[in-house]
């Protein structure tokens, strides 16, 4: 086994130098880390799992990468090796991002962006790297499906003054303030995305499309009592049928309150606060304004 291991490591090294990432990963994944014959220390096993995950990640192979990062998950809790823990966190966030689990990826990127240390082992953590992690956190949050958890993370990011210096900040601000994003803004945002974040989904929408249309629909529901799909399409810069399809799904999934009148081709947004409650809220607002004055 020792000889096999050495050969595999050497071959993996060669593949990696030729940027044949998956071949290198396969070579290393052939090493039996759980062999009963040879003592394999935990650090070595953790190092190999993370290395294989990284190699698969280089080829955007999220499935295999995730398999090895999951193995690493069992080992990393007992590890005290900062470099390995750091690498584990970075690769795990990237795998979640690649698998379009944007909400979880955002939380991990944000955690990474908050690290205090600037030196981990011989790896230097520079501001640019942290800024990159913060930008990735914002991007993934924007791409995540609308809902209460996304709103919480949006609020955290919006209030983190480091974000106000990011190029992506104007988009973050509009998304947080639930404002409609116009086509030029979406196109500019799209330029900054990775391939998988613009990939086509089974329902023929891209990830970005779906995220933007959902966001804009929710923003429109704050502005309109009702709107025709024709006008909604013009407002959002998309095909009216597309808007209707996504609106219908969001209503079914209870992520938006409303109803669709297909005969009139109009969507009626509903405010789930009772009229009487709205009355109370408005009176409270009025009294607060009176107090301010």
């Amino acid at each position, binding site marked *: 086994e020792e000889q096999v291991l050495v050969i595999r490591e050497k071959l993996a090294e060669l593949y990696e130098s030729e940027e044949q990432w998956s071949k290198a990963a396969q070579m290393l994944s052939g090493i039996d880390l759980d062999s009963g014959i040879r003592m394999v220390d935990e650090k070595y096993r953790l190092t190999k799992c993370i290395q294989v995950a990284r190699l698969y990640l280089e080829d955007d192979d999220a499935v295999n990468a995730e398999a090895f990062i999951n193995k690493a998950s069992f080992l990393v809790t007992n590890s005290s090796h900062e470099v390995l823990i750091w690498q584990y966190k970075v690769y795990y966030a990237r795998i979640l991002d690649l698998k379009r689990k944007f909400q979880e990826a955002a939380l991990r990127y944000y955690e990474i962006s908050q690290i205090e240390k600037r030196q981990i082992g011989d790896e230097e953590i520079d501001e640019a790297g942290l800024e990159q992690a913060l930008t990735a956190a914002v991007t993934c949050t924007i791409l995540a499906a609308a809902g209460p958890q996304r709103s919480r993370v949006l609020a955290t990011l919006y209030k983190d003054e480091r974000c106000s210096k990011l190029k992506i900040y104007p988009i973050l601000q509009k998304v947080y303030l639930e404002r409609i994003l116009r086509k030029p803004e979406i196109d500019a945002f799209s330029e900054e995305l990775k391939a998988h974040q613009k990939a086509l989904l089974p329902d023929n929408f891209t990830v970005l499309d779906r995220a933007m249309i959902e966001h804009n629909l929710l923003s429109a529901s704050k*502005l*309109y009592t*009702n*709107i025709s799909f024709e*006008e909604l399409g013009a407002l959002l810069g998309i095909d009216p049928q597309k808007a209707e399809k996504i609106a219908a799904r969001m209503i079914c999934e209870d992520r938006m309150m409303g109803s669709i009148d297909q005969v009139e081709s109009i969507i009626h947004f509903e405010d789930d606060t009772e009229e009487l409650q709205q009355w109370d809220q408005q009176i409270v607002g009025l009294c607060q304004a009176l107090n301010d004055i």
Partner: protein
Amino acid sequence: MDIEDKQAELIKVFTKEASVLADGPSLETLVQDATSHPALFAFSEILSVPTITKLDGTQYSTLLNVLRLFAYGTWKDYKSNLGSIPSLLPDQVRKLKQLSVLTLSETSKVLTYDQLMRELDISNVRELEDFLINDCMYSGIVRGKLDQLRRCFEVQFAAGRDLRPDQLNSMILTLTNWLGTSDNLLHTIQEKIKWADTMSEVDKKHRKEIEDKVEDVKKTLK
């Protein structure tokens, strides 16, 4: 009220600057900057700066007209007084239209699309809604809901415009009525509370009597 917070600083800057300027051309620039600034919707403070009021009767008296138009006037007023006001820059046009929406929402909380398109010289629904969304709701001067089916804009909140002196009395009257109504309301609520207390006392007493009777009957039975 954050519109007032936002523009308070701007008003201070412009009034301070105006108070030290003496010549017409620089005041002209200042008035243009103030009436073009995206976050300023109040002009009566600037109007009352002495160096500005002194312009009356001079060759720069049109500046006073411009400031009065932005303080109290609407897009319609501008259109019907083109002679006495220099032509406005795009930023000024947008602002005057924004201010016109504030004036319209003084008289009604439901503004029809037709009325808005007529008052603001806007030719189609998309353009009107984009204006109301981007330049009115997103700039924070109004809050409300667009109703395409009924083709109207329901205003929930609109920032206050400068008041003309003659508006003061009606405002005082409205406040007085409001105060009176509120006092009556509080008085009525107090009455209701007293009534409820009395009723609950009566109930308690009645319940006590019933319970005593039950006890008596039980004793008699024993």
